[in-house]
């Protein structure tokens, strides 16, 4: 059984259970045949191995919502670890995105030879490509350190072909494609339904943090006149408040206080809640302006619910139009037209049926792919 280290420094320092940390947790959960050992960068600037029970604790952070697992992770973090040799045969998987200048400097100072054992999963280059979707006073000197450093990493895995392409063509400015694309799992919300209803109520939902990039304002603009004029139509936004415009937040609150029939906002949905809404929906809506991947559409398709999506979503790059309705151009009018298509039972049924034809990756297949890549 070959050993692969997984660098959990960021998770251990800030266990806030982000989407990226979820990926780490899924790797820990589905890693085949054991052999995944947790390490972190100690304040001394050396890599240390921590107790193996940390792997299970990290998995439990996402499966048990009571916070006990997070406490356990914090406690295990404080244990004195065992130094690992700088030059060793084991691969070191870094599945995290981090901005900590000390950690960036650690990798920056490393020789090319030493970097050979590392495997970095790269999610996106969003701060470099779309700074407009981040806070105006985003500290560039801190944020860009990771991206500058990751250029030197010889072995990178990318969560989408789009991320791979932008990394190679723009960050490296090379015509040569390198690295591997690792397909994230679609089954985060549970097992795939064996059967599904093809005639469903006129319910739609959209999953994602409320922020400008996710375009919820566009969704509300498209839906509001339909909700006010279509009997039985419902739209549910599932997601917490992110960095959003105050006027939009006020609008969502006002609509959800009974001022628009069929409109609902659930700010802190757990996985069960999300699953229930997605399964029951005639379609989910995901019209993000820019993504590194975009998990909700594939999770929707996994649960046999079609998705209305913006063009060129990386998570749908291999799926095409099967179970997918692309909104192009991306504006309220086109989105409204797409929704109206789904109000037709026969059309909706066809798209629901299409979702059954899809062969979608799972977290297990993702973890296996990562494991193979690391060996």
């Amino acid at each position, binding site marked *: 059984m070959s050993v692969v280290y997984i660098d959990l420094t960021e998770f251990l320092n800030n266990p806030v259970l982000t989407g990226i940390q979820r990926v780490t947790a899924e790797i820990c959960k589905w890693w085949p045949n054991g052999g995944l050992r947790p390490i972190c960068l100690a304040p001394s600037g050396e890599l240390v191995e921590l107790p193996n029970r940390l792997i299970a604790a990290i998995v439990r952070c996402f499966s048990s919502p009571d916070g006990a697992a997070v406490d356990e992770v914090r406690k295990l973090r404080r244990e004195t670890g065992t130094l690992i040799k700088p030059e060793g045969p084991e691969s070191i998987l870094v599945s995290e995105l981090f901005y900590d200048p000390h950690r960036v400097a650690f990798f920056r100072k490393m020789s090319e030879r030493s970097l050979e054992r590392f495997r970095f999963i790269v999610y996106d*280059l969003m701060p*470099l490509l779309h700074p*407009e979707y981040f806070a105006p006073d985003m500290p560039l000197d801190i944020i860009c350190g990771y991206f*500058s450093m990751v250029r030197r990493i010889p072995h990178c895995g990318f969560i989408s072909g789009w991320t791979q392409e932008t990394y190679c063509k723009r960050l490296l400015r090379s015509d040569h494609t390198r690295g591997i694309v690792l397909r994230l799992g679609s089954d985060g919300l549970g097992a795939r339904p064996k059967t599904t209803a093809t005639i469903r109520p006129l319910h739609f939902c959209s999953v994602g943090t409320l922020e400008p990039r996710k375009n919820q304002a566009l969704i509300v603009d498209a839906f509001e006149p339909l909700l006010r004029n279509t009997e039985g139509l419902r739209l549910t936004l599932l997601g917490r408040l992110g960095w959003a415009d105050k006027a939009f937040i006020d609008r969502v609150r006002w609509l959800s206080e009974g001022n628009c029939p069929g409109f609902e906002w659930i700010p802190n949905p757990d996985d069960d809640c999300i699953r229930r809404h997605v399964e029951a929906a005639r379609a989910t809506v995901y019209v993000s302006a820019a993504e590194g991947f975009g998990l909700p559409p594939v999770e929707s398709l996994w649960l046999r619910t079609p998705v209305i999506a913006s063009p060129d979503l990386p998570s749908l790059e291999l799926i095409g139009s099967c179970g997918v309705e692309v909104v192009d151009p991306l504006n309220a009018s086109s989105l409204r037209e797409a929704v109206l298509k789904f109000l037709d039972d026969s059309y909706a049924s066809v798209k629901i049926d299409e979702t059954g034809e899809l062969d979608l990756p799972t977290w297990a297949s993702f973890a296996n792919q990562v494991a193979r890549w690391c060996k």
Partner: protein
Amino acid sequence: MGPVIFADLRCLQDPLYRFRGVGHHVAGLLRSRRNSRCASWKLVGLADEAMDDLPREYSRLVDEVSYAWNTTLPRDGAVFIDGSPMTHDPRRNVRFSADPRFLNVAVIYDFIPLDWPGYLSTTADRIDYLSKIVRLRSFDVFFPISEYSAWRLSEVARIPVGSSVVTGASVRSSLYESRKTLPAPCPFYETPRPYFFTIGGGDRRKNTEVAVAAVRRLNTQCKRRISLKIVGSYDEAYKADLLRVAGDCDGDGFLEFLTGVDDAALVELYAGAIATICPSHIEGFSLPVVESAICGVPVIASTCAAHLELITQSDALFPSRDDEALTGKLERILGDRSWRERLVGEQAPIASRFHEREVGARFWSAIADRTTPIQLQRNRPRKSRIAFLTPYPPDRSGVARFSQLTIEAGTSHFDIDIYTDAPRPLTLSARSRDAGNINSAALLKGPYDSIVSVIGNSHFHTRIFEFFEQYGGPCILHDSRLTQIYYHRLGADRFREFAKSILGRPVSKEEVEVWLRDRDLPSLFVEPILKRARPLIVHTRRYQELLWERYGVRAEVTTFCPNMHFSESELDSLSRLAAREQLSIAPEVFLISTFGYIGKEKGMDACIIALELLRGWKVPAELHFVGNTQDLDAAVRNVAEAYGVGAYVHMTKNFVDNEKYRFYMLASDAAIQLRNYGLGQPSAALADCISAAMPCVASSELAESCDAPEYVLRVPDRNSPLHVAEQLASIWENRAERLDRRDAWRSYLEAHNFDRYVMRLGEILGLS
């Protein structure tokens, strides 16, 4: 088109005057303009922002309300009207009174403060009043409201009689209309409670007590109870005095005090009276005499000079201190109806003479007679003369340099005087003159066709702000927001108060800190400038649009120009190499410069990280910050070291002299000019780069504001180091000689040069 009329409207703002005699008279004059020979002339009402708002019914009397007391001399001449020259601070008007090319007109009411005791109780009051009298000599024509006032004017101010046109006081037409609609009153001898009527007020010279005493004696003698109705505001002490004179307690006797009387009620009061008593010791004009005549009621008046002009019936007059004589007149009018009727008939013609239409016709006709083109153009030099209030070299600011270049180009078209607080000596071109430090002397000297304030967002403009806030006028606004200068001038606490007054809500310290970084600005903090600028001159169409969108203000544009100019021969490769030698830059280096002071808002970090990306792409780039580091040297070093490019980042640290700046312009292969706030603000540095035909990478809005040609590559305003690096890489990969951009370069310079700037400035000021 005709001359432009400027009218000082402060008497219509001041609550002490606006709805009393002075205010009614001035309003009547303005109202009657539209039926006069001056109807087509533009009338600009000048108001004081620190006073009460101009009532709506008065603002409608002018074509425009302005807060700019420093006006450019209109091409077809100008008239300045001071409707109340003895009341408000005359320094506001000095632009007009000091320039003989304005026809200065003054309305004269009286000199009662000089002629009657009790008005000028302190030495300061006396000095102030006398200085206003002296200032009257700067006017050209006078419009006294009576012969008496005209005579006093000639006596106290030594004004020749020929300079005066007596108009009389204007009685508003609404009073005449109210009289027409009033039903015929019941004859007084048929009413159960006949009364005499008088209009007074808290000023003791109005002499209400003599009317009270006379009516009391009449009632005693005749054993009657004839009322005396008194309109006017009296304080409790004066009222008590009048009641003592009447021998009555309030409400018990024959006195009836009335206040807040509108025109309809006033006319009714007049019309129902036995007679109107006008007992004043002294007046400039007596409106009650005219008003009484309008209402067909006889007047018994004191023998003050103003009454003698209007009342020719000697038997209707009495000495102001003789209540016994007045009693005799009242008794006679009570019993002798034929006498009363005779007085009514003989006094009736007074009414029509002082209708505001008639008074206004006399006023405007006299003005029109004095405004022939020859008269207005007297002493006007053939070449226009302009004063600039501006920073100027050796002041170290971009605006100083820009003004210098403007003035150098401008001297071909204008004679220019420079008012500046820069250290002396100034570097002057021929035909421009150092006129001294910045202060209101610019209004007194000259005469200038235009006095232009150059306003910017730095401490160099502090004194110009002080001048401009007082006098307004033509303004070149260099910076699109003035947050920092107001903060500097006002200090933290007062700036918050200032912001609160603009935003209409409380303002926190934390918010202000964000605004000082040019983030999330709820206002551009230019409101005080917008209010006073006439015209407002800006440098980009984008900013012009922004001002219209945000404030509904129309600004004029004269497009921004580069401060630096290069000949074609300077732009060849030999010049480039020579400049590089001066700067010790190796030939193979891809030299990238960013010009201007360093700041986070100017993409300091993005520039350094972009350099790191370029070097990672094997581009032999080096980055030079050319300009003041603003104490950010250490921050620059830290970021550069963190990204492993410390050896390739250089700073010039302090203000760069022209020569070195020029070397960098010639030596650099590319420039980066970023800014995280748009606001239509031009960039002198970017304009200079364009002038040097240098390829640049610039924020999109900045490039558009500067009308940048295609060799300025754009990046989004929310800039990313990757965007910047990619554009720089494109410049590197497609590197070409500067003169290969000749066409675009020439085309830009044809539209952006100081000759054109000055010509346009002249057009805007109406001086071309």
